[in-house]
């Protein structure tokens, strides 16, 4: 009963989100995000139909749609980067490098682990594969959020909601799949309920943040950095000299 209520509430919120976005035209601005919501809505309907008509087919449909959702989710991360940093070329450059490092690290770990499991592909479970993909996604979003924090990138209400909601969803998914891969699949029903509730919460965040269109905050112009670097360098060098002088005095005393 509760499960059905959550299912219907989720579908209703997704429809509200889509209708508001399409009617207000901002669905085009955040097109990958809205495509993701549309996909999740279609996915849950398809799963519902398959579950009640052909339960043998259900696991295949479940994992297929799950992986497609993860892939479109990567697109959402890219959209956050593209829209959020479009007016901040400096931070965007940092983000490209940092994300590059995240992907290189993930690929390296996969390559290092591969010889330990010669028949890794058939052996790996769908849960573990999804966990790995979600971890890379979580690391990417974490790196982006860290850069937003360090560079104090201003965000409009809409994109802030997308980042908060999707980040929360991804981190909770990682926790869920990590528990499943440790405890085995006998608690899958419990974690499935937890995920449904978490997704409902995330949808609540999205609906409140994307109820109406709010323009992204943008700076007036770009700047040349060289002069600023040199000023910052000079002042930092002076501070280092002062601090070192003090350390020398204390040691000498």
């Amino acid at each position, binding site marked *: 009963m509760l499960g059905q209520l959550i299912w219907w509430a989720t579908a209703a919120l997704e429809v509200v989100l889509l209708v508001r976005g399409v009617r207000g035209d901002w669905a085009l601005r955040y097109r990958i995000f809205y495509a993701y919501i549309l996909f999740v809505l279609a996915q849950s309907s398809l799963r519902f139909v398959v579950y009640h008509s052909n339960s043998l087919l259900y696991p295949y449909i479940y994992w297929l749609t799950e992986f497609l959702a993860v892939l479109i989710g990567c697109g959402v991360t890219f959209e956050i980067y593209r829209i959020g940093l479009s007016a*901040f*070329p*400096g*931070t965007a*450059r*940092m983000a490209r*490098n940092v994300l590059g490092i995240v992907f290189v690290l993930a690929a390296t770990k996969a390559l290092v682990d591969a010889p330990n499991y010669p028949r890794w592909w058939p052996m790996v479970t769908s849960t573990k594969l999804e*966990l790995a993909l*979600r*971890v890379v996604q*979580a*690391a990417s979003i*974490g790196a982006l*959020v860290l850069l937003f*924090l*360090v*560079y*104090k*990138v*201003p*965000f409009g209400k809409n994109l802030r909601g997308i980042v908060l909601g999707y980040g*929360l969803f*991804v*981190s*909770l998914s*990682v*926790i869920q*799949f*990590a528990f499943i*891969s*440790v405890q085995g699949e006998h608690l899958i029903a419990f974690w499935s309920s937890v995920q449904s509730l978490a997704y409902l919460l995330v949808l609540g965040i999205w609906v409140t943040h994307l109820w109406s269109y709010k323009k992204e905050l943008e*700076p*007036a*112009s*770009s*700047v*040349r*950095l060289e002069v*600023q670097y*040199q*000023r*910052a*360098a000079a*002042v*930092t*060098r*002076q*501070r*280092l000299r*002062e*601090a*070192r*002088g*003090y*350390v*020398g*005095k*204390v*040691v000498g*005393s």
Partner: protein
Amino acid sequence: MMGVSIAFVISMLLLYLLGVWRRATVSARELPPNERMLPDGARFALESCPAEYVSKIFSRDDWEFVAAMKSPSLERFFSEERKSLALLWVQQTSADVQKIMRQHAELSRRSEDLDFATEIKLFSRYAELRMICGILVVSIELAGPLWLRGLALHVSKLSQRIEQAQEAFHAAADETRGVRNIGSL
């Protein structure tokens, strides 16, 4: 199992970062924007304690003069005053560098000629400097008059701490020296 632990750590870090970021964006909306202050280069020239003052604060000459008076209360008063001044200087230094980095971050985010390696170096220097300031604060708090009186008891421990700080400073300064242009940071 190792992979699962990493997954947990990453997800927890992400949750923490999202929380911090949310708080930061909320407080940023409450503060007046300071974008238009930024192109003014003079803002970087922060007022710092002049070098001769810093030298005077940590000078042994004054201490020797006070000690020669053989007045314990004066010695105690002098130690406390010097400790306060030293702490103030460290805190001011730390706050100044923090301010510089904040301004730098606000400028560099819009820059088209940002250099990844330089940025990383700059942030690592900043982290290093903040850490050393923290060590200095603790050292000054611990040393104070007790450290001066009980030199024999504390010198070993304290010098070890300060040696570590000094090494870090040397590493930073060595890199700074001899490297030209922006990359010198």
